[in-house]
């Protein structure tokens, strides 16, 4: 049988996010798959170098629209490590609470997306309806639905009042009941079981070899969780289990996420019960002493990693972000290969991808020769100015063209 190569993406291959996959098909089966990163590079790491530490919190929060608290917490943890700040206990508990509420909203969102991908629109509508409950709670606690802006260097910006805690507990009861219902639906509904079982297999060894993270790895039976392995915030004082599953396929990933939801409710209740009194932040000077640090955070999608290098000024010299999706990309190609073309969207969606968080480069393909080329910043600038000059739009005499020339 002949092989044909087809592109999947870059427009919304699975979720509403751009990423390009090249699939080599043999009949209906995928013989080989490659990921072509570089469709949505935003240059955020570079932008961090020209902003102060405080301003970067808000920039990095906008890496991801769903795990915004994860990125900002991971970043402030890194900066606090360099500056040697001791964050008040209460602030750590509040960070943990918001982090867990975010995990709840992210997993409910994923459950809906998974339903959408397999054509089970009822599940999509219902889980997104219930997600509104936790979104409202987050809005009440932080002042915004998506970009919470809860973190600041040295603590958090808002305190939680007893009345708010009461509201959160009420919402948790509702959500827990609904999650129990979804657990029942996910494990008993035959359309879900037969559609997801055996799809996108990732064995225990392969998961570890390819460096998968988060629920993808935990669904392969590896109990790896930064919250347990390298506790940050208040997780060292909390009692919770790391949810794992042995199915090692998309169905297993669904089960792991639903189980994690139940653990998150448990964590939230503990946090609200055990939250100590005291201040919520300490004052940190704008200038951070020279040094470098790295910090890890268990985002809903897996391990998030931030690296910051400080040079003694009020702006960092380098900020490096490794979003969880980047770690899972190697596993994606492995999971797609050998499967059916129709399974590709759900397998991609099953890692809960966040492609815009992942993109780190721009690749230029010459359509005439098919050659690929890498550019540095100045090179790309020169190339674009010449590109437009050939087509009659001359930037060379304007301020854009003159700069750096």
């Amino acid at each position, binding site marked *: 049988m002949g092989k044909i190569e087809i592109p999947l993406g870059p427009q919304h291959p699975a979720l509403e996010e751009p990423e390009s996959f090249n699939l080599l098909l043999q009949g209906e089966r995928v013989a080989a798959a490659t990921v072509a990163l570089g469709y949505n590079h935003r240059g955020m790491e570079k932008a961090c170098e020209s902003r102060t530490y405080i301003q970067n919190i*808000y920039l990095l929060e906008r890496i991801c629209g769903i795990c915004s608290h994860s990125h900002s917490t991971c970043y402030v943890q890194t900066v606090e490590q360099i500056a040697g700040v001791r964050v008040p206990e209460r602030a750590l508990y509040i960070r943990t609470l918001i982090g867990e509420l975010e995990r709840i909203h992210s997993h409910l969102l994923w459950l809906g997306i998974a339903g959408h991908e397999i054509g089970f629109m009822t*599940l999509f509508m*219902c889980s997104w309806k219930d997600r509104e409950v936790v979104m*409202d709670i987050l*809005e*009440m606690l932080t002042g915004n639905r998506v*970009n919470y802006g809860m973190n600041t260097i040295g603590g958090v910006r808002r305190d939680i009042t007893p009345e708010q805690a009461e509201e959160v507990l009420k919402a948790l009861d509702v959500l827990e009941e609904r999650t129990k219902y979804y657990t029942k*639906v996910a494990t*008993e*509904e035959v359309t879900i079981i037969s559609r997801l079982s055996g799809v996108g297999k990732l064995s225990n060894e392969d998961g570890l070899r390819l460096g998968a993270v988060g629920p993808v790895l935990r669904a392969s039976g590896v109990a790896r969780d930064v919250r347990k392995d390298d506790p940050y915030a208040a997780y060292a004082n909390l009692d919770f289990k790391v949810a794992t599953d042995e199915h090692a396929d998309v169905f297993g990933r669904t089960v792991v996420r639903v189980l994690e939801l139940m653990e998150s409710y448990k964590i939230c209740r503990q946090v609200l019960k055990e939250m100590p009194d005291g201040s919520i932040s300490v004052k940190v000077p704008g200038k951070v002493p020279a040094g470098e640090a790295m910090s890890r955070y268990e985002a809903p999608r897996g391990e998030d990693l931030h690296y910051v290098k400080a040079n003694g000024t009020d702006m960092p010299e380098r900020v490096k972000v490794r979003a969880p999706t980047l770690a899972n990309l190697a596993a994606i190609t492995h999971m797609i290969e050998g499967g059916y073309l129709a399974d590709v969207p759900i397998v991609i969606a099953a890692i809960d991808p966040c492609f815009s968080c992942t993109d780190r480069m721009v690749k230029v393909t010459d359509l005439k020769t098919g050659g690929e080329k890498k550019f540095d910043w100045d090179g790309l600038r020169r190339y674009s100015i010449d590109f437009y000059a050939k087509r009659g739009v001359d930037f060379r005499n304007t301020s854009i063209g003159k700069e750096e020339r």
Partner: protein
Amino acid sequence: MKSAGRMIPYLISMLVKKPDTVLYPYVHANVPEHFRGALKFDQEKCVGCKLCQRICPTGAIAIEKLENTEEKRFKAVVLMDQCIFCGQCVDSCPRKALENTENFELASLDRKTLKVDI
């Protein structure tokens, strides 16, 4: 028990319930207390230190001196299309001259109207 159509009983029960959505522009949508909406500026309190202007992550706020006033008075010029509603200026203001309101209906068809003096 494994079977198909596990969500059907729930769906039938939903038929007799009120819709979860609201007809937004006709029904007012409520936001919680301390929502980070449009900014409010108090001229009486501002001392013109420009901390907000320096800390703003997007450069959306500028403090300008008012002419023809007896005392030193300032006004805030906010570029609503650049403001990300993070509320850092409110946190940074030493005199609490800035405040977030609950107003979130800020859409406009004309970009010029998004530069506002408050």
